[in-house]
């Protein structure tokens, strides 16, 4: 099973071979409400861990999505252009945002696993 890690900013990253697939968590999409637009990074953009990578917009709010680790963007989910509601219906699968290389795998250790993230979210409510 692929490794999935979570950030305190509510991003998830699924590690597939040398690359990571990044999106926002189901908890985050619930907090945002109906997603109406996603601004994705350009392919080949170099991201630092914690830097602003994308913007997700609902009717009343816009939130930055941060790179959970450092690396380079290799692909973006173009389906979100036509159907941003995928982020609501399938946040942790079909609603992924972008793929990136992982330049320093040790950065993954600073993220939470699913259980830790669940506990973190419960602490927020």
């Amino acid at each position, binding site marked *: 099973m692929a490794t999935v890690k979570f950030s305190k900013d509510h991003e998830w990253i699924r590690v597939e071979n040398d690359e990571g697939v990044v999106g926002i968590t189901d908890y985050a999409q619930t907090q945002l409400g*109906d997603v*109406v*637009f996603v601004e994705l990074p350009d392919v080949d953009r170099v991201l630092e861990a914690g830097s602003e990578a994308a913007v997700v*917009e609902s*009717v009343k709010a816009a939130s930055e999505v941060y790179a959970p680790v450092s690396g380079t963007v290799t692909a973006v989910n173009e389906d979100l252009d036509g159907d*941003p*509601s995928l982020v609501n219906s399938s946040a942790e699968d079909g609603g992924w945002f972008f793929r990136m290389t992982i330049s320093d795998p040790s950065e993954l250790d600073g993220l939470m696993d699913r259980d830790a993230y669940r506990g973190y979210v419960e602490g927020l409510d």
Partner: protein
Amino acid sequence: MIRPEEGNRGLRLEEPLIFELDTPGAVGVDLPDIPDAPDRLGGLARNGPIGLPRLSEPRVVRHYTRLSRMNYAIDSGIYPLGSCTMKHNPRLGERLARLPGLGDLHPLQPDSTAQGALDLIDACADWLRALTGMPAVAMSPAAGAHGELTGLMCIRAALEARGDARAKVLVPESAHGTNPASARACGYAVESVPADSSGRVDLAALTDRLDPTVAGVMITNPNTCGLFERDILEMAQAVHAEGGFVYCDGANFNALVGRVRPGDLGIDCMHLNLHKTFATPHGGGGPGSGPVALSADLAPFAPLPWVLRDGGGWRLAEHASAVGGSPLGRVKGFHGQFGVFVRALAYMASLGGDGLRKVAEDAVLSANYLLARLDGTMTASFPGPCMHECLFDDRFLRGTGVTTLDFAKAMIDAGVHPMTMYFPLVVHGALLVEPTESESKETLDRFAGLMLRLAERARAGDAAWFREAPVHTPRRRLDETRAARQPVLRWTP
């Protein structure tokens, strides 16, 4: 029989888009014959139709009259939008702005043929100087946010002239969104300052953040919670001690006009929304006008043009070479929102200094009256006295299943425009009520009665009724998600 698809019901009128009313052959303006002359368009003549609809004058008048009936307005009832100052708009201003020799003046006719207009601009500035207690007013900004940007540019220009542009501006977290946006547009980083438990800027937190990289602080006073920043003199002193400037967002000047001069509070720079405090019409979202009052240190940097007295007459100084100092360039075409100056000056001259003072007193009295009547049933966020507006949060709705939005929509069904909702962001589910001095006690009592009855009904467990509201409107709740996901921003055939 009425066909239901036409939608009209008595005085509830449906109206298609004007493009759907196109009638080939119809025209709403008669024009004279076109004299013979060769085409001098250099081969650039339009080569296809534009696609504009054709209508007669009666059909156009009917179209817009029917549309107008789908709007709520201050003319139709109380409009207690907090921070927007929806007061009565006197019609005298409309008449005067249309006088021959004012409304039809061209901005570039010779100064010698526009002496009355230049005198009028300076007279308007003169009232604003007296009311703010500040020595200069830049008249050209077109609206409040434009004034903010201009004021910050003056601050930055003054700092640059000292060789010290600085890097950031401090903005309280309760500020209008325009404040951080304006600071950013002026090239400054924005740092937020938290509020204390009384709903005011935390003086200690502000002082902690002050250092020689801070260009200035943007204060709204009274602030967006409707409270006067009691520590304003101490704040100003602290900012000045670090060499920074104090910008004041003048959106809420209606609480102070004629009673307190910002210049006496240590403020260096403040915009005035003529379309709020000085009763010029909001027009469904403009035009506004945002003159900026400036301290003596900032005045030399005021944007062009300046109106100057020269011997016996007035003159427009439109270029840096024509004035002393180091003015900003232009922030707008021509000389500012002249038509708005006419209306604002007529308002000030009608009320006089004594009447303007009464405006502030009555606005503050009315807000405190509503606070007294409503607190207890609704939940006031902070204890009074408030200034010209009173802030409630949604604690009184907790557990009822009714949200601030639902509550506002139920007010619409009762025939009243809602207060400002969900702003300021510093309290949960904010309801910000600004009655203004225009309303009678009877109207305030009816408004208070309505709010109390709605609060009772929410507590009685009638959430479903609230969620259905409004039902007595041209349209019920509209799908904003759909509008944003698949934007349709124009008609297409």
